[in-house]
Structures are given as C-alpha cells and as structure tokens.
C-alpha cells in the first residue's frame, strides 16, 4: 500500500525562500502569455469542429486517437525531462535558473493556458493541426514537470560512493547514463510516468472538448464522444464511452505500467529483498515467453553492446575533458539577448494590461474570489468524506484488499470526461452549473486526498495503535492524539495536488456550452472563457495572469508552509 504515497506525490517542493529568481520567472511566464495573446489576435473568427459519430463502432478509432495524443505528449515530456534534468543537475549556473522556473511552472494551472494556446496556434497553423498540437502541448505541460523533478532529484541523490566508483572505474558518460543514472532513476521515473498519465487524461479530455463561441476546437476522441453523447442525452452512448475509457485505462495499467513496475523492482537501491515485490501477470507471461527471451538475447543485448562500443570508441578517442571552462561568450550573449527580449516583452505586456479598464480588474478580482471559494468548498467536502473513509480502509487490510482495485478503477476515470454527464444530470436544478462545477472539482480532487489518507492510515505503526489503546484513548481523543497528526503529512501532500486540480477544473467548469446553450457562473474560469469568446485580449491576458499568480501565491504562502510543517513535525520516521 505504500505505493500510493509515491504515486500521488507532487514534485517535491524545494525548500527555499522566494527570491528574485521567482520574480523573473513570473515575468517570463507573463511575457509568454502575452506573446500567445498577441498571436491569438490573428485567430480566425470561426472554427468548424469535427463531426462526432456516436456509433459504438467508432469508439476504437476515437480511443486510438486519444491514446495517440497522450503517447505523443508523453514521449515529448520524457525527452524534455531527461535533457532539462540533466542540464540542471550538471551545471550549477543553469540549475539556479532552471529549478525556480520548473518550480513555478509546476504550480501554474495549466488549463488557464488552454484558450491562449488554442487561439495562438490556430492563428499560425492550419486548423486541424492547430487543435491537435495545442492538445499535445497542453498534455505535455501537465506531464513534464513531475517527471523532470523526479529525474533531477534522482540525479542529485545518487549516492556519493556510486558516483565515485563510476569515476574511478572511468565509466564514460554513456555507460554512466546506462548503468548508473537511468537505473537509479528508473523506479521514480516509472511511478511519475503513471502519475503523468493519470493527470494527462484529465487535460486531454478538457483539450479535446474545448469550444468557445463560434470557435469549435474539438478533436475527435473519447472525450468528445462522451461530450457529444451527454449533449444529445444519449445514455447508451455515455455508457459505451465510459466503458471504453475505463477499458483503455485498465488495459494500459495491466499491459504497460504493472509490468514495468514488476520489472523495475530490480532497480531499487535497498540491499534487502522486498517483502511484497510488485507483481504482474503480464510481465510473468512475457518473462517466461521464448519469443521475448530470444528477442532479448538476439536483439536487445547486442544492441546495448553495440551502443556501448560506439560510445566507448568515441570516449577513448577523446582526451579527458579539461577543467570546466568559464561561461563561453556565446552563452553570455544568448543570455543577454534573452534578458533584453524579456524586458521588452514585459514592457509590452504591461502596456496591454494598462488597456484593461477598471471594471475588468474588478471582474477579475471578484472572479478569483469566487473560484477561490469554490475550490475551498470542494477541498473541504473532499476532506470531510475521505478522511473517515480513508482511515477505515487504511487501517483494515481486509477491507483494503477488495476495495482498493475498485477505488482505483473509479479514480482512474478523468473527471473532465464525466463533466458532460454531470451537466446532463444537474444543469436543470437551481444553481445547476455551480453544482456541476463543484462536482467536477470534487471528482477531480478527492481521489488524491483519499489515496494519501489510505496510505497515511496504513502507515501508522502498530505499536502506537496499541499504546493508544492501552492508554484508553478513545473516540475524539484517539483521533486527536494519534490519527490526525499521523495523517497530516499525507493530507497535505494530497491537498497540494488536489488544490492544483481544482483550480484547473474551474476553466472547464465555469463556462459551458451545453445542449446548444451557454451557461456561465461567477469565477475566474468564466472570465477567461468570456474574454476568449469576445476577443477581449487585454482581459484574457490580465485574467490568465491573475489566475496564475493567485495559484502560485496560494501554493507558496499556504501549501508550502503546511508541507514544511508536516515534514518537520509530523513525519514518522
């Protein structure tokens, strides 16, 4: 069960105060959004969406499209992560810029970029390509950061002796990568990949179904199928769609992630055999198959040897590198140019922000406040039910063994996929959209908290439980002295992820077009959507920027502190 705690842990916050670096990063993000908004001005006024067929026969094709987008984004994320992490871990100077940048990027609500990215891409690219690329970029931004953190952290925590051993035995960079760095990071990379995929579905569904006014950015895929089905009130199609989605996710889990986990057990550093190593029937089947054995011996091994030999020839031919030279002139020039561009961009962005009337700012402020409230309520509800249920599951192994798979499957369905269904159910009730938005936030967030609570409850040492029983602590006393303090770090960890998810959900949830009608409620997500629809670019910039800043600040001022408190005071070691 401890695997849950690893699965749903966000990128580890760096233990560092805010610095001027953060300010630079925030300005850079602002300039980036500005550049997007500038491009977006040229976006075509109307975009026609695809025809979506509700026939079940179309589902395999849609599923393949969706998985394809995810895979493309994942490959992109992996390449990006390896390069970025390597650079940050091996150059101190680069690290000082790259890590704060990553730190801000991972707390930015990604969906807030969606309108800007879609509009700007459609301004410069052909229609079909623009939406496809935008969805891939969006999923990429949801998958890359935690992978990068995992890789960077692995690189920087490789035990000193192993590094020194590789140095004294003169492993070249390739051998070091293949035999030290990649194996050392493998487990963490695989867990984080699973987490990236789980998160990616959420954004894929949102990206596939985005429509604003005359611009229909939808893409053929599972998300659109579900949306269309809900739109037409076709319950049968909804069932088909949800079923297919669950099937795809379960298949990926069984055929890709479980086998990878079982395989990666060999890469753990601990020098003891694990008591419950991860297992996978599919891995066992592959492992025992002759064909795979032949493939390993005849293709993979020679390939590895070939690569080793290739890099060996190159490294032996080269003289050992001289002492690390200072920053080359080219880098300084590039840095300077980038700085100037940043300054100019900031100036132009400020100019555009000035064009926002006072009423616009008031609307943004009210919107941020409303969304903040909604996020808080969603989190409170999530906590209220997950803590007792999670403790019940976590402290009862029998219950856990049969509830866990069910909970996992239910949790694996991305909330954004179900959103149209919620709309169908509650939109007609009073305060319908508010309720639907709350439901979306809740379904998007509660699982993170639940899994962490389960992990926390099952990690409470047995002897402490005995002690509290012996001390006759019961009811509230027992909760206050044992359970709540023990859960605290886990709840905070889950809360950080959940809060991020809830903010993201606001973009999709607060402004919807459903059944041919536009529904909107008060919130920053609605403000962004409306600005997109009306082509009010200064407002779009201001609203997006405000949301990013708010979330970054909430993270820094609230979650970071709680996290530090949890790490220092309540972590059981």
């Amino acid at each position, binding site marked *: 069960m401890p695997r849950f705690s690893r699965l749903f842990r966000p990128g580890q916050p760096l233990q560092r105060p805010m610095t001027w670096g953060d300010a630079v990063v925030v300005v850079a993000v602002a300039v980036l959004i500005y550049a997007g908004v500038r491009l977006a001005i040229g976006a075509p006024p109307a975009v026609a969406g695809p025809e979506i067929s509700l026939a079940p026969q179309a589902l395999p094709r849609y599923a393949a499209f969706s998985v394809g987008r995810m895979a493309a984004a994942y490959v992109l994320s992996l390449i990006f992560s390896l390069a970025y992490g390597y650079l940050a871990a091996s150059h101190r100077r680069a690290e000082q810029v790259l890590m704060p940048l990553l730190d801000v990027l991972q707390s930015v609500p990604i969906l807030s970029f969606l309108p800007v990215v879609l509009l700007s891409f459609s301004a410069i690219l052909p229609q079909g390509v623009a939406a496809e690329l935008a969805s891939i970029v969006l999923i990429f931004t949801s998958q890359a950061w935690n992978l990068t953190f995992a890789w960077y952290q692995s690189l920087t925590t490789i*035990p000193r*002796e*192993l590094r*020194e*051993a590789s*140095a*004294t*035995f*003169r*492993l*070249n960079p390739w*051998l070091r990568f293949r*035999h*030290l760095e990649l*194996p050392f990071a493998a487990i963490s990379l695989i867990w984080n990949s699973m987490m990236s995929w789980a998160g990616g579905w959420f954004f894929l569904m949102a990206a596939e179904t985005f429509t604003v006014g005359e611009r229909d950015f939808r893409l053929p895929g599972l998300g659109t199928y579900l949306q269309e089905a809900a739109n037409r009130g076709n319950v049968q199609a909804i069932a088909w769609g949800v079923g297919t989605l669950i099937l795809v996710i379960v298949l990926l889990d069984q055929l890709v992630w479980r086998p990878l986990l079982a395989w990666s057990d*060999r*890469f*753990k*550093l*601990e*020098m*003891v*055999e694990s008591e419950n190593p991860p297992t996978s029937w599919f891995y066992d089947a592959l492992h025992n198959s002759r064909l795979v054995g032949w493939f390993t011996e005849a293709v993979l091994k020679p390939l590895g*040897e070939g690569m*080793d030999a290739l890099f*060996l*020839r190159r490294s*032996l031919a080269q003289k*050992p590198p001289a002492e690390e030279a200072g920053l080359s002139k080219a880098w300084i020039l590039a840095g300077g140019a980038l700085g100037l561009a940043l300054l100019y961009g900031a100036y132009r962005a400020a100019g555009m922000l000035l064009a926002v009337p006072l009423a616009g700012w008031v609307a943004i402020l009210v919107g941020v406040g409303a969304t903040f409230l909604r996020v808080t309520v969603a989190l409170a509800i999530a906590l209220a039910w997950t803590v007792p249920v999670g403790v019940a599951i976590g402290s009862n192994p029998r219950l856990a063994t049969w509830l866990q798979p069910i909970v996992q499957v239910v949790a694996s369905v991305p909330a954004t996929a179900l959103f149209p269904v919620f709309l169908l159910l509650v939109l007609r009730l009073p305060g319908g959209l508010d309720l639907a938005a709350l439901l979306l936030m809740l379904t998007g967030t509660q699982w993170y908290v639940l899994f962490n609570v389960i992990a926390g409850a099952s990690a409470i040492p047995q002897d402490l439980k005995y002690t509290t029983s012996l001390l006759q602590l019961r009811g509230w006393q027992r909760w206050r002295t044992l359970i709540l303090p023990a859960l605290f770090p886990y709840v905070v960890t889950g809360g950080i992820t959940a809060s991020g998810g809830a903010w993201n959900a606001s973009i999709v949830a607060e402004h919807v077009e459903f059944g041919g009608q536009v529904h909107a409620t008060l919130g920053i997500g609605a403000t962004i959507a409306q600005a997109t629809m009306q082509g009010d670019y200064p407002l779009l910039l201001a609203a997006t920027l405000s949301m990013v800043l708010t979330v970054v600040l909430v993270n820094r001022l609230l979650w970071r502190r709680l996290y530090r408190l949890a790490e220092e*005071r309540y972590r059981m070691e």
Partner: protein
Amino acid sequence: MAANRHLLELQHVSQVYRSGPRLFTAVEDVNLTLDEGEFVTLLGPSGCGKSTLLRIITGLQRPSEGRVLYRGEPLSGVNPHAAIVFQTFALFPWLTVLENVEIALKARGVPPNLRTARALDLLDRVGLDGFESAYPRELSGGMRQKVGFARAMAVEPELLCLDEPFSALDVLSAEALRGELLELWTEGRIPTQAILMVTHNIEEAVYMADRIVVMDKEPGRIIAELRVGLPHPRQRKSSQFLDMVDRVYATLAGQTQPEPLELGVAPGEPGQTRALPHIAIGDLAGLLEHLAEMPGNRADLYRLAEALKVDSDHLLRLTEVAELLGFATVAEGDITLTPLGETFAEASILARKEIFATRIRRLPVFRWLINLLRAASQHRLEWEVVRASLELEFPPEEAERQLETIVQWGRYAEILSYDDSSEMIYLEPHAVSGVKAPA
C-alpha cells in the same frame, strides 16, 4: 632519494573549504610518500581528513594547495592506475556480481569474451564462484565486499586504495576478508604494487600495514608515522603486537594537556574553539564506572576497547570527553580516573547531573552560550541564531552537530532547555543567576 623513485608523493597538500566568510581546513600541509611494495594505512579519528586525502590521492578531488605526483608526474584528473574499494561497497544493485566486475573492464574497452573470462577468474580467486549471476542484495556483507575487491583488482591497479573496507562488515567476515587480502598481497598473487588503506581501527592497522600514518583532526594533519616491522601472519596476542597497538593508542590519545590548552577558547575569541566530541552521556558514565572498578582506577586504552566492546574511534572520543571534563587523565596510552571522575562514577543520578553541570560550565563554549542567553530577552535565543554564530567557528554541518551536542549536554545538566516547536534555546531559571534554586 630522487622524487621519481616513489610510486606516489604528496607535497604540501592542503584542502580548504570556504563556508560563508570563513575558511575551514580539512587537510593541512600533508607530505607523504608511498613506495612500491608497501602496505600503508592512514589512521585517525573521524573528521581527520583521511578520506579526503584518499580522494585527493586517487584524483577524485583536487587539493586546494600542493601537488600530487604519481611516478614523478603530476596527477591530473582521476588516476588511471588506482582503484578503490569502498566502505559501503558501492556496487550497482541492479547488476549481477559478474556484471559488476565486468563493467570496470568494459569501461576500459576490454572486448566482451575477454572481459567475462577475466571477471570469472577474479571472482574465482576471491572465492565467489557459483555466485556470478547473483545480485548484490542476495549476498552477505562480506561477500559483497569480495565483489568490491574483485572489481578493483579486475583493472589491475598499481595502487589499490581501500576506504575503511572492513568497517561495514560483521566481526567474523571482516576478519576472514582481512586474512584473504593479506594472503593475496603477501604471496604476490595480484599485480598490485602498493596498497593504501584508510581506517580508524587501530588493531586492524597494526595487523595489516607495513607503515601506519597517524592523523589527527582540527586541522586534519599527519602527527606521526610508525613502521610496523612484524612479519606476516601477525599474532594478535604476541607481546610485540600488543606493544605496537599500545604505541598507536598513546600517539592518538596524546597526553592530557594543561587546562587552558585542553579547554580551548570561546567562540569569537582569537584561537581555536574546541569542538565537543559527539558522545552520549550514558556511554561516558559507563566508561567511568568501568574504570572505577579497575585496580588503581587505571587501564590500558587498547585493553579497554576490548573489554568494553567499542571500536577505538568511539573509545578515543569518550576519553577525550573524560579528559575535557577533568574526569580522567591520559598519558602514554593509559587512562586514569581522577578523584572527581571516581566521585561521578559512584554518585546518584541527581548528584551526577550536578557534577556534570559544574564541569561543563567551565567549558568556554558553555560559558559563551550562557552569557549570550543571560543577555538575551527572556533568556532565550533561537536555535538558528546560535547556530549561525557557531558557523563562524565550524563548518555548517559541524556547527549544527556541535549545537546538538551542546544542547544535549546542557539538557542533561539541567542548564539549558530547548523547545522544539518554537526552536528556542532557554536558560533554565536557576541557571540565570548562576545559583541552583532549592528543589
């Protein structure tokens, strides 16, 4: 003797770290030579820079000053003729025993078939045949270290460096492995020209080395070189062997100095602030009680290590504290309880605390901290503030450890208290005026 006759030569090697405004010396002005056919150990307490020196010698680290010559040539980068056996084995857990040895050969471009044959041969020589396809985690500590040795020997190094290779092993495997290494070495069955071993275990050094280079800390430096002229295999119970162990103890334990020298100065004053050895007070009491039962309240340090079943490094730290607090004196490898120490050993728990309190109040670092706290509002200071001022005297990690020790001792003596939630160090009320309040 011409310089190029030495296999390895260190000339005025120093290693200095910068931490904030201050410089800390890890290794100071070390001159050392190593010749072919020699087995030399670097011996010293933890923190004396012996591991740093090993890293400088193998080229993993560049000294801030001085030169490292290998066969008369200045060393640049990692020394290709050296291999290291690590304390924690440093095996790749995801590679099999065979692959762990092979990778060292692979990195040198040895073709696959030759590589496997050579690795198998070495595993055979260290007695690991049959375990080629095992993973390190399936092996015992002793067998893991054998893989470490096989890997190091696979590259046929001229200089074999051992970084406390036996200290992570249980007593029996360590002893067996020592014997096996000596056998390979003395019978010339490995192409190694010289062995350099870092250790803090005095008996191990005397058992194995031709020459013992004794180091001391603050700053890390060489204080003596002793030649061990005993033939192999050495008899641990022989009088010559025990004499040698006694001599090394005497060198390392030094002699109790006159009080001002022993105590050092307070932080901020010119001169060296004495670092408190990190020990548990219970262990100190155990040592004193044991001594109180000895005839004449005295004991040979090396016998004491055996009787108390502690390693020499730990024992030396305990004796250092006993000296520092005036509970014992050390001379020529013998430790003698002072009357005060005897009183402490026989006192009740509360009386012990009082004796301890009066003794640590004399330590400059405690005087300094108590004065700081008296001057502070509400007689309390943040942990961070005190640590920051200690950082002017010690490197950051050491400053943290020093403060932990200070607070631990101060809490035991009921002079200081510490509140974890506010991270504040307090002066106990009765310590404010310097008079103990009636209980």
